[in-house]
């Protein structure tokens, strides 16, 4: 691994100037390295961070990566990592024109990393430095504790996908406001109305009395002295309600780190550092997983826009067209995040330029008028810059994949089904509806299960986890090993409440079809399922399952 030559660096700096002129915004410093394909294979299990801690699973991935490379040699164009300064990796044999294109693409990524709000938790961290210090800590621990360090890493990584990323990012974007339940709120909102169910006139009388006391600038306590004399139970009920309202907002990892008796023991304290490292690393990469389509789309949009307006393309137009098409062509069947993201940014710009994100356009019903509608706002660029700042894949797809987008690019949901007679798999157009398409894309997005600790059930040394029901079962094969890990770190039995589909699905007879022949609306799989509540218990490395 070495830095690119001065000549190549010069090309990069030239690209930066033009990208800035076009409105992209990023730090001055960047680092570009030349790597071999072999380096790439060894880096990729470490999410391209050269200084990430050592772990045997990474080694397994490297070995299988090498096997894969033996069968399918490939030449990746570039990889960028979200560090300060941003680091990117290249092959050493790229011609200059290709480097120009790649650098524009890379600058698109860097701009995205450094401006999209979902990355805000990563902005103030020097990741390579942090990772290096973590790596040193772990190798020091490994020298002391041996293979148990690897178990601690394994068990921590087993729950590193259910970290509370959104809570974390929320604290960065919107500093937390205290939401402590006040006595006054409880008295008027809950106690009088819900518990005592007093009449409206009595309620208003109390408000009047309260307003008087506060006007006389007497302490509010006085007001409540009278309350407690009428309702002696009030204080106790308020205390309980306040307790309840203090919602547990620790994620599973934090909860275990704070409350595990096992980890509190002097001999086991070191495991907390490992959990912390694993948790922080996971949080660091969460934004990247959640903005894949946008990030690639944004970078592709800019390499195209900037390179097409760059005189260095002269003479390489067809070469560029070929490379660009390989990256951003829409496959006939299948999903390409680069292609989808790029087209969607294009579409947003077009819609915004023509002022179609407006009530006027929305109300328009005439197809011909809709097609010709042009409000001539020409604010498309501003709009997409705003979108790259405020959106993640889910909101991006959910808001902007509309019927116009579907029609423009002739998109559809492609289904695959078995034709029993011909013994073939048939690909067919399942739906051209934007709603269906959105749902299909959203189903492919990263969405770890929501699993939290229930403190009220976590008594007598038990850790009680609840999987929030979302019409999705957990992968049962993985439960055992994951829960063995949690049990180990927690130092006691672990319970997990989840829902599973009942074996036999209930299919309602389809009466709608009897009177009016024609295609019935098929119910989705999820709707016709029966669900049952299941509690898994992990105790002494034995997993038991109990239906409820």
């Amino acid at each position, binding site marked *: 691994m070495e830095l690119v030559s001065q000549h190549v660096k010069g090309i990069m700096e030239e690209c930066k100037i033009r990208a800035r002129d076009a409105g992209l915004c990023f730090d001055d410093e960047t680092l570009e390295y030349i790597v071999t394909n072999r380096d790439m294979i060894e880096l990729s299990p470490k999410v391209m961070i050269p200084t990430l801690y050592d772990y*045997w*699973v990474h*080694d*397994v991935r490297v*070995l*299988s990566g*090498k*096997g*894969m490379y*033996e*069968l399918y040699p490939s030449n990746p164009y570039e990889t960028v990592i979200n560090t300060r300064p941003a680091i990117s990796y290249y092959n050493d044999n790229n011609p200059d024109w290709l480097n120009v294109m790649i650098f524009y693409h890379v600058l698109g990524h860097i701009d995205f990393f450094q401006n999209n709000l979902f990355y805000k938790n990563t902005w103030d961290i020097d990741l390579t430095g942090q990772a290096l210090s973590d790596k040193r800590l772990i190798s020091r621990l490994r020298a002391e504790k041996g*293979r148990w360090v690897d*178990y601690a890493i*394994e068990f921590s990584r087993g*729950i590193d*996908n*259910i970290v509370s990323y959104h809570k974390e990012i929320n604290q960065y974007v919107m500093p937390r406001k205290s939401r402590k339940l006040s006595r006054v709120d409880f008295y008027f909102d809950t106690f009088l109305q819900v518990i005592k169910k007093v009449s409206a006139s009595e309620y208003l009388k109390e408000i009047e009395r309260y307003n008087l006391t506060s006007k006389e600038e007497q302490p509010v306590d006085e007001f409540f002295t009278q309350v407690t004399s009428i309702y002696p139970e009030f204080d106790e009920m308020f205390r309980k309600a306040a307790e309840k309202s203090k919602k547990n907002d620790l994620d599973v990892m934090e909860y275990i780190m704070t409350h595990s008796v096992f980890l509190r023991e002097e001999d086991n304290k070191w495991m907390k550092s490992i959990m912390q490292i694993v948790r922080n690393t996971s949080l660091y990469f969460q934004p990247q997983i959640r903005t894949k389509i946008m990030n690639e789309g944004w970078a592709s949009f800019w390499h195209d826009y900037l390179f097409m307006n760059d005189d260095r393309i002269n003479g390489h137009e067809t070469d560029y067209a070929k490379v660009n098409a390989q990256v951003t062509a829409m*496959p*006939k*069947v*299948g*999903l390409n995040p680069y292609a989808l993201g790029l087209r969607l940014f294009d579409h947003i710009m077009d819609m915004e330029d023509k002022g179609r994100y407006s009530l006027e356009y929305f109300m328009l019903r005439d197809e011909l008028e809709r097609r010709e509608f042009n409000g001539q706002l020409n604010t498309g660029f501003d709009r997409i810059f705003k979108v790259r700042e405020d959106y993640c894949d889910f909101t991006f797809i959910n808001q902007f994949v509309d019927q116009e987008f579907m029609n423009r690019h*002739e*998109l*559809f*949901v*492609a*289904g*695959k*089904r*078995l034709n*029993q007679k011909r*013994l*073939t*798999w*048939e*690909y067919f*157009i*399942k739906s*051209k509806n934007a709603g269906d398409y959105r749902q*299909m894309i959203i189903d492919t997005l990263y*969405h*770890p*299960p929501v699993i939290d600790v229930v403190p009220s059930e976590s008594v007598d040394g038990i850790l009680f986890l609840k*999987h929030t029901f979302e019409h*999705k*079962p*957990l*992968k049962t*094969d*993985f*439960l*055992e*090993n*994951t829960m*063995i890990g949690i049990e180990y770190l927690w130092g006691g039995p672990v319970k997990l409440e989840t829902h599973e*589909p009942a074996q036999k*699905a209930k299919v309602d007879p389809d009466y709608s079809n009897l009177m009016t022949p024609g295609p019935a609306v098929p119910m989705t*799989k999820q709707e016709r*399922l029966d669900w049952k509540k299941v509690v898994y218990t992990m105790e002494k490395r034995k997993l038991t399952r109990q239906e409820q």
Partner: protein
Amino acid sequence: MITLDELLQRDKQREEDGFKRKIRIGRLVKPGRGGKDKIVVVPTTVEEKFIHDEIKLDQDDTDGGSTSGTGQGEEGDVIGEEPVRPSEEGEGEGEDAGQGPGEGSGGEHEFEANAYELGKVLSQDFELPNLTDKGKKRTLSRYVYDLTDKHQGVGQFLDKKATLKRIVQTNISLGNIPDVSRIEPSEFIVSPQDLIYRILSREKDFESQALVFFLRDYSGSMGGKTTQVVVSQHVMLYSWLLYQYEKQVETRFILHDTEAREVSDFYKYHSYKVAGGTKVVSAYRLVNEIVERENLDRDYNIYIFHGTDGDDWDKDGKEAIEELMKMMTYVARIGVCVVEHSYAGKNKTEVDRYIRASGLLEKHPTLIKLDVMGEDSDDTRIIQGIKTLIT
């Protein structure tokens, strides 16, 4: 960089620490033209986490899922199809039919080399037994040349140990060694005839040869894990035999649903899938036919391994048992592995039932073995299954 051996060592340690093994021996297959696949054996592992699973219903075999698409057409239009049961012919073989056999023939070889390594790993690290009787009686004799014969005075390679022995003998008989406890080598009298050499000579070498039939049920019910388990086991079995027989192993691959067919290579063997019913007898019959037609039982130790989910339309297996009996006249071992679906219930599958009922297992315990495992079996269980099938 850590090696495969170290990884396996570490995995063994896990078991001693009370955790399950996590390393699996995986294989990557790249289909090659004309059946010359390239297979690379690599370790794999899964990091278990809480993740969502797809909802699978029993009746949903016919739905292959959804993805994005682009192009013209109306809803409901079929835009393309691919055969469920790919044909042997026309898979690009036409294009390169003109190329000589020299081209790309390394494919088969590379798998062999890798599989041999795997077989070694399995025999050594997983403690699979070595074959006690390699059935030397059916042998292919050939000559090898080796420095085995000894010759006095002249030759290619001085055998120092034998020479020294000879010199000592000569000197004792000459009375040149007065005190045996104090030998002085510089006083030795050495005759040219005392020098013993090894010379190159022709040796007859007996090599056992094995022919392995792999039979796999590829009917509709064999979806997902059952197939994975069967294929995993067959790869390991093949590798192990390859190691045991010093690479002198030939393989035949047979797939069956209601009909059986032979496929030319491992890639096709493990990747094909159809959605039909199951008749086990079809595969057994085909094996018997092949053996008879090609007179294979004369030259080979024949092994037959069959992997299935135990489903058979022929409930009492009358015909299948008949074919099995025929097989027993020539095989070294039949190993049937039933991988049960988790919903099927223990020991309730047809194949399992009728093989047990037939009494063949008791009558010919050395010729046929049956092993039943769940579809969730891990590598340890699969390897244990191999032990059951081959011991």
